[in-house]
């Protein structure tokens, strides 16, 4: 456990040292917010202010999806560079570097979410729910990210280069985030796409967050906050049940 913490600290230090990784969780969500709120806000929701409660959860989820998929890239790079050889020659648990990376990522997710929310409040976003709902929303997205990261770990362990991991990860993130109600209401999409959106777990993460930030009124008719949260937790269970064994198998094979 101590080893995991020491290695998590390594990942956090690296994040602050590595401009690209830090931009991913700081500048990027702000740019996305500005871009979507001021460019599409008027078109999608009539005006920017009423678009905020809709789009902010979407931006948080998209940012975190991208961040959670970088874990595979980072692990792959560590293996290529020989840093893992050093870890493996030390008397620590084989899993410590992996869990250290996941723990470091939880911190990144929290920062990304915090940065986006603070910036959103500055430009006029207001929570209508009590603080514990807001907290629950943050915990929910982090739980989802940690469940999703095993997909990235799995890809990262199988791919030959970190570039390939990145490419494959993008292939996964784009249909998941854009094929959801992230930026536009699902009702505006063609029928076949609505079918996908309805089963896409990302849609439910976003809906749950909307509900937890802005109350049930922010949801589509017939949806409840609790129902959305359950959907998310169920998809987390499925993701972990499928990809955690695959990821740890691939990791052990490589490590």
């Amino acid at each position, binding site marked *: 456990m101590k*080893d995991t913490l020491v290695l998590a600290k390594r990942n956090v230090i690296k994040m602050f040292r590595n401009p690209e990784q830090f931009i991913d969780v700081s500048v990027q969500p702000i740019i996305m917010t500005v871009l979507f709120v001021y460019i599409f806000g008027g078109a999608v929701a009539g005006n920017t202010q009423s678009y905020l409660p809709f789009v902010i959860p979407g931006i948080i989820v998209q940012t975190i999806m991208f961040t959670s998929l970088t874990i595979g890239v980072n692990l792959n790079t560590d293996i290529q560079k*020989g840093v893992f050889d*050093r870890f493996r*020659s030390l008397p620590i648990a084989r899993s410590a570097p992996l869990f250290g990376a996941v723990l470091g990522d939880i911190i990144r997710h929290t920062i990304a979410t915090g940065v986006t929310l603070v910036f959103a409040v500055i430009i006029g976003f207001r929570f209508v729910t009590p603080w514990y709902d807001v907290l629950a929303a943050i915990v929910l997205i982090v739980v989802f990210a940690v469940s999703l990261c095993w997909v990235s770990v799995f890809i990262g362990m199988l791919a030959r280069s970190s570039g390939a991991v990145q490419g494959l990860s993008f292939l996964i993130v784009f249909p998941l985030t854009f094929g959801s109600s992230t930026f536009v209401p699902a009702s505006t999409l063609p029928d076949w796409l609505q079918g996908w959106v309805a089963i896409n777990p990302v849609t439910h993460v976003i809906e749950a967050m909307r509900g937890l930030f802005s109350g049930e009124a922010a949801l589509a008719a017939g949806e409840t906050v609790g129902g959305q949260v359950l959907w998310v937790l169920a998809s987390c269970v499925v993701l972990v049940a499928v990809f955690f064994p695959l990821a740890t198998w691939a990791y052990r094979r490589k490590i």
Partner: protein
Amino acid sequence: MTYAIEAQGLTKRFGKTQALSGVDLTVEEGRVLGVLGPNGAGKTTTVRILATLLAPDEGTARVAGHDVVHEAKQVRRSIGLTGQYASVDEDLTGVQNLVMIGRLLDLSSRDAKARATELLAEFDLTDAGTRLVKTYSGGMRRRLDLAASLIGRPAVVYLDEPTTGLDPAKRDDVWDMVRALTAQGTTVLLTTQYLEEADALADEITVIDHGRVIAHDTARGLKQQVGGQTLEVRPLDLADLPAVREVLARIGSRDPEQPATDLLSVPVADDTALTSVVAELASRGIRVSELGLRLPSLDEVFYSLTGQKQADDQQEEEAA
């Protein structure tokens, strides 16, 4: 006699490549073994097995008294590994790298810092300690990497081609550090492509090629086995060339060769050849611009070892 490293019949196959086909190695406690071989001979695979990073397909190995497969954790407590490519974290500072490894080796935060400071001083990196490793030169990285492998004061240290790609001055620095290490009684297994390096640092040398041990001897024994050293003379005046040739022909074990227009070389069997040549040249009043003894290159070692092996095989066949 206690062996710090004992390997028997190690084999390893990667897909279609047979990386190791039965490697035996022993290193006594406190000694330095040089593992000499060309690229792809199986040096790194051997080190990775002995460092518990790879499991052998067949064969067994014990390091510091523990089996590398079944008692990997105990082995890891006793070893330090410096890889072919410096495996330090570029995005951390020198201090952060060493403290992190100290913490992973169960040192307290304070002890890890103290040990890091001590090692940085020892490896002449104190000033660079707070800089990111990214900004280090190749030589500094190697030194930090070596420092990182010594944090836990390991009884056995593996140095996998520690000087490959370093310029000669940096190489000498690494050599000095290896000597300091052995002076403290650490057992060292060093892989290298250079006979000169193995000769300078190792008590014994194991030569491997195509995943097999083809020779094991002291540096001296090995040099004798491969025809000793080469004496090279470059006379100041080209007109002296025939006279030099005459001198070398008398002292050398075969006719001198002329690798360059003004240079003559001849293999010599014993260490007194140099003084005899100097005396002879002086008495004839021949002035030289260059004179030296050169160890056989890896190519020459392999040529002569593999050539010899084939000859031995033929003899055995004839005898049988």
